[in-house]
């Protein structure tokens, strides 16, 4: 047991921090309960998917600056399609759309050999334009069942449906790959591209696959936006920087090769609950973002120091 904790020290630390923050929230606002948990889980949805997608490409050694734009494309596509056709086919089309966008991002990076950050920066604008082409102003309508799927609790009050949806969607996309040879290839490529190549890993296809996975997760993110608002908004939300922040806080090394998806996902909830706490405390909104940033860098610094001391012992 202690061995498991030591191996996952960072994740364990994040879980402890999340638990502490939940207790703090309860202390500040004694009425905080099931509905509060549900609303935090709902607010975390788009951040969670953007973060999961970002984590996959960071692990492979890249970065995707177009996550928020891809989410916008998927959100408007979902809202437009669901207004005109049955929900399930529309949902599948949106997921395929995310896959195609991610595939294009990855293929461009591998084929042109232009750095990831440049290609995805360019694609940020391309996907933003595509979203506006699909829907010039906010509109469309998400299916009722999609909106209902993220409300309420699952079986027992206190386990929000939104949380269950997040876990299932990320697990379905990531776990089969993580446990296969492809998963190993993704970590190997991110860890040391040359060594991976010499060990027989197909670097190009592995990268393209990682970006495609990111696209699919962004499609889930777009769907969650449509589910939250009931409409599609063509202008990307603040998910790019937030996802990078959660990936770092979640213990994924920005150079690639190390980290999991679990840490970043817990980090998403930590960042959302910090905002809830700051709202409950009626902090000056201009100071709120400063506090969020300071807490983040503080936690990463403390965590790194603790890890290093642990390694020395």
């Amino acid at each position, binding site marked *: 047991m202690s061995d498991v904790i030591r191996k996952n*020290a960072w994740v*364990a*630390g994040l879980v*402890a*921090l999340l638990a*502490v*923050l939940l*207790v*703090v929230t309860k*202390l*500040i*606002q004694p*009425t*905080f309960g099931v*509905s*509060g948990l549900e*609303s935090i889980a*709902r*607010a975390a949805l*788009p951040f969670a998917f953007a973060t999961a997608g970002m984590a996959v490409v960071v692990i492979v050694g890249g970065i995707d600056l177009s996550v928020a734009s891809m989410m916008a494309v998927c959100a408007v596509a979902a809202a437009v399609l669901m207004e005109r056709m049955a929900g399930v086919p529309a949902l599948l089309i949106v997921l395929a759309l995310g896959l195609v966008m991610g595939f294009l991002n990855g293929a461009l990076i591998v084929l042109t050999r232009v750095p990831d950050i440049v290609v995805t920066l360019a694609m940020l604008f391309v996907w933003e334009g595509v979203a506006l082409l699909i829907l*010039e*102003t*906010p509109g469309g309508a998400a299916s009722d069942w999609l*909106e209902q799927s993220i*409300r309420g609790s699952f079986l027992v009050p206190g386990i929000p449906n939104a949380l269950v949806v997040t876990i299932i969607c990320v697990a379905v996309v990531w776990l089969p790959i993580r446990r296969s040879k492809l998963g190993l290839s993704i970590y190997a490529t991110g860890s040391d591209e040359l060594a991976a190549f010499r060990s027989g890993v197909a670097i190009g296809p592995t990268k393209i696959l990682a970006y495609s996975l990111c696209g699919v997760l962004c499609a889930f993110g777009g769907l969650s*936006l449509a589910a*939250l*608002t*009931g*409409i599609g*908004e063509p*202008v*990307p*939300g*603040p998910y790019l920087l937030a996802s990078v922040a959660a990936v770092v806080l979640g213990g994924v090394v920005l150079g690639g090769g190390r980290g999991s998806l679990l840490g970043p996902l817990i980090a998403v909830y930590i960042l*959302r609950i910090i*905002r*809830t*706490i700051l*709202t*409950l*405390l*009626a*902090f*000056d*909104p*201009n100071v*709120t*973002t400063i506090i969020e940033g300071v*807490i983040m860098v*503080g*936690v990463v610094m*403390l*965590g790194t*120091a*603790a890890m290093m*001391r*642990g390694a020395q012992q």
Partner: protein
Amino acid sequence: MKKLLLGATALAVATSMGTVSFADAHKSYTIGISNTVQGNGWREQMICAMRAQALVEGDVGNIIVAHRNTDSAGQLEDLNNLIEAGVDAIVLNPSNPDALNSALEAAMAQDIVVVAVDAGVTAEGAYILSNNQEEYAYLGARWLFEQVGGSGDIVYMRGIAGVSADTDRDNGFKRALAEFPDINVVHEVFTGWQQDQGKQQMFDFLATGIPFDGVWTSGIDNVIVDAFVESGAPLVPIVGADNAGFVQYLTEVNGLVGAAVTNPGSVGGAGIALAVDILNGEAPANTTVLVDPVLWENGTDAGRATIMAAQNPNLDPEWPVSVTVPGWTDYTMEQIIACEGPGGS
């Protein structure tokens, strides 16, 4: 690991100490404020008007301001957090009329008063208080059409296609147009409410050499005057909003005949006043309340005097100069400039 926990505990202690400010709020309302555009002069005036009005309302003990740049999903998060904070009323500038209904309905189910300012929401039972945009356009357009003698060619510079304020203004403009059959719209563009874009569009149209007699703008106004002055074109009557820059031009630019129609960001303050009225059981009969605009022209002595009086060097140049809404707001000019709410928030 130990350190991590230690840090987290320190954070917990630090944050829980902040709750003390809650405790001294006695017999009074807590009002939550939600806004999704930060750094825009009109919106900043709106937030300051909300704070100042909350300060002078005797019944408001505390306000919680969620004011950041975000999308509808982010505003939903803020609204749900305000509900969790146990506010008595929520005054919001909605990012979208349809996207926020789930949170607004949850709020109203808990007897939280919801007032949308500046733009409407479709959630049933929510109060809407906004500037009367149709009347805004009608007033300015009618004045302009009279200025050019009831007949002539007009350049019509709109805002953003599909945004409700633009659609309402278009209806008002068309209403005035119907009253003047000899007025012709020679050119219609969308400025996107962007200063640089509007200015370029005016440069482009001046370059075509097509004659026209007047310009109606949807609030992108001072740069239109700049375009005339910089390209050396003779000035024609121009209608704009009461933005500080344009109002200053009305008094300073030689040969400019123009009018400013008020579109105060201080409707935010009026929204707080309305929320308090409703909490005190004095709800208006209709859930939609419109604030009527006023027109200030620089051609008459009375109009000129109003414009001179409205100017204040202490005012942020990006703010609308009409800082109060008569009949609604009770704060002073100093209080809105100080931008402080109850309890120093």
